[in-house]
């Protein structure tokens, strides 16, 4: 069936983009906890040495230190792996940064199962934790265009922002000119004439799982299933009227897909909006189901934990109680980023 050999793969989009973006913003400073190259700010450090602060492997201090800088009018952009921004220093994140509503930007790399680093490096509960923090804004990038445009979105927020960031070889799913918009989902596929026209299923995805859904949706359409597909990049606040309109158009089911636990993240946020708006169809949540993951490649883990394109097909079958006769070969090509390509400066 369809293939996607035309998808552009952007190598390390954050490196040059953040460098250029920072040039005209002297109040932007970067704090790093011994993962500078791994978080693609090595060149930034070398370009702006007076604005770069190595804080060592000491994240609790880094969070509170950033709060002090923010209180003095600076805009600290913390770069480290997502797990080290909210697990070890959660109290510092809450009391030093979130309570005073300080403009600290938390750039979290390796969201979910995007790393072979195993349980210690896989942020599978970060959205759940962050959604429970007052004053926090949560953004998630799904492609190179969003990696590039998330900077302006975060910069404009009066308060702390957590970003699920992508690195290395990142696909460009959305045109470079179509920037991320705060609290506004992208409508990627319409099941009817318009967003409010009834459709069989409504699929909401975030982060890297949007690409998985994009692989499956042509096959679903060929099997006669009407699908509306939204890509969500603002997870908190979650008050986008586009989402409510789309949810109300679902005739049979709503399906969420997230690179995260099914509790507390996109699936939970959608469940809350459905309940509050009395959307009367079942909700199926694709994600990690009350389990940690382990160290393995992204495609392997996507399949093992039923997070991949075929899992969406199976979930649609369950939701519609109908066999669709779709096999792996019917799905769009999988993009395989070489695990140890030059784009990944370290194994982690």
């Amino acid at each position, binding site marked *: 069936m369809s293939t996607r050999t035309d998808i552009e793969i952007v190598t390390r989009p954050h490196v040059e983009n953040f460098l250029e973006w920072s040039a005209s913003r002297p109040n932007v400073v970067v704090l790093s906890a011994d993962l500078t190259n791994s978080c693609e700010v090595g060149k930034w450090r070398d370009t702006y040495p*007076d604005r770069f602060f190595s804080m*060592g492997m000491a994240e609790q201090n880094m969070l*509170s*230190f950033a709060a002090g800088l923010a*209180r003095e009018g*600076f805009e600290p952009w913390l770069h480290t792996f997502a797990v080290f921004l909210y697990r070890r220093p959660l*109290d*510092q994140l809450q009391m030093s940064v979130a309570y005073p509503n300080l403009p600290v930007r938390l750039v979290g790399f390796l969201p979910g199962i995007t790393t072979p680093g195993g349980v210690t490096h896989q942020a599978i509960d970060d959205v759940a934790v962050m959604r429970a923090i007052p004053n926090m804004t949560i953004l998630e990038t799904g492609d190179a265009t969003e990696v590039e445009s998330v900077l302006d979105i975060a910069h404009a927020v009066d308060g702390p922002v957590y970003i699920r960031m992508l690195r290395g070889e990142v696909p460009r799913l959305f045109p470079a000119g179509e920037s991320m918009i705060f609290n506004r989902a992208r409508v990627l596929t319409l099941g009817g004439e318009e967003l409010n026209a009834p459709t069989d299923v409504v699929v909401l995805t975030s982060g890297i799982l949007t690409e998985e859904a994009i692989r499956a949706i042509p096959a679903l359409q060929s099997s006669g299933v009407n699908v509306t597909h939204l890509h969500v990049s603002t997870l908190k606040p979650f008050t986008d009227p586009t989402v409510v309109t789309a949810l109300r158009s679902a005739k049979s089911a709503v399906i969420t897909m997230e690179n995260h636990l099914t509790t507390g993240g996109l699936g939970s946020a959608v469940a809350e909006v459905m309940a509050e708006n009395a959307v009367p169809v079942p909700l199926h949540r694709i994600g990690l189901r009350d389990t940690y993951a382990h160290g393995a490649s992204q495609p392997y883990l996507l399949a093992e934990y039923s997070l991949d394109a075929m899992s969406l097909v199976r979930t649609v079958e369950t939701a519609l109680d109908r066999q669709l006769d779709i096999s792996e070969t019917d799905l769009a090509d999988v993009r395989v980023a070489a695990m140890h390509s030059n784009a990944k400066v370290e194994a982690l």
Partner: protein
Amino acid sequence: MTPTAPGTTDLDAQRIAQGIRRRVLAHVLANNGGYLSQACSSAELLATMYGNVLRLAPSEGPLHPAAFESVPGPSTTRVSGGMFHGEQAPNLDRFIVSPAHYALVVYAALIEAGRLDEAALDQFNKDGSTVEMIGAEHSPGFETTTGSLAQALSTAGGIALGRRLKGDSGRTFVFMSDGEFQEGQTWEAVQALAYYKLDSVRVIVDVNRAQCDGPMDTVMSIEPLATKLKAFGVSADSVDGHDIAALTHALQRPTGRPHFVLAYTDPVRGVPLMNERRPVLHYLRFTGPDERRKYEEFYEDLVSTDSAGGIR
């Protein structure tokens, strides 16, 4: 503007210290309990800071604390308890209070220093008031929210680094309690202060060797504290925490490094009655009318002695 201190004398600091003890004891009697031992141990520390050391903008007179309006958020106006330290300026000092459960002592010190209306204590721990039991950043004297201990030193480091980037000449002082040296974050902060050579950070520590569960040595020892700090690359002076001249000298002494003054104190200083409550001194709640009466009599003696000595 002209900084208020230094310029006051040790006699003023002595008066402030005695006033802190008297006010806190009166408050504890009126409220049937409170953090009294913290006043006994830290009275000279805070008196030295407000009386002899801190260069702050002059107070516009004793200010009355605002009522609580809201927690910080995107649509709120920030209310900072730092306003009781006067308007901030590049050449003036900052004073960050870390052990927020010393709030009552800080309020008493601000009153004695002429920066807070003495009626503020009537609002202590009252619903809708900013004069909270565990101070937050809307409470008088508090710039940051530090009730979860050991975060203020890191935040002060960030403030000092930011001030250095802006070219400020003022110092950033931090008041800490000794129990905070049990927290790992404190040592992360010390190594960062040393690494970035933030010699504008000066820390005064109330080493009263008492904590919630009892004497520190029965909970978790932190000694040898000065040796540990020096090994981390900062300077440290150990002084008698009730000797105002020694405190003043140690706090003002240039060292070219982040500087820690370890003020060894007596948690029952000035109120020897509390010896009967050892070993647990963290929070005083009267056991009954008999104990309460003893403290009332002690307070009456204290007030008349102060009057006889000409100190208020």
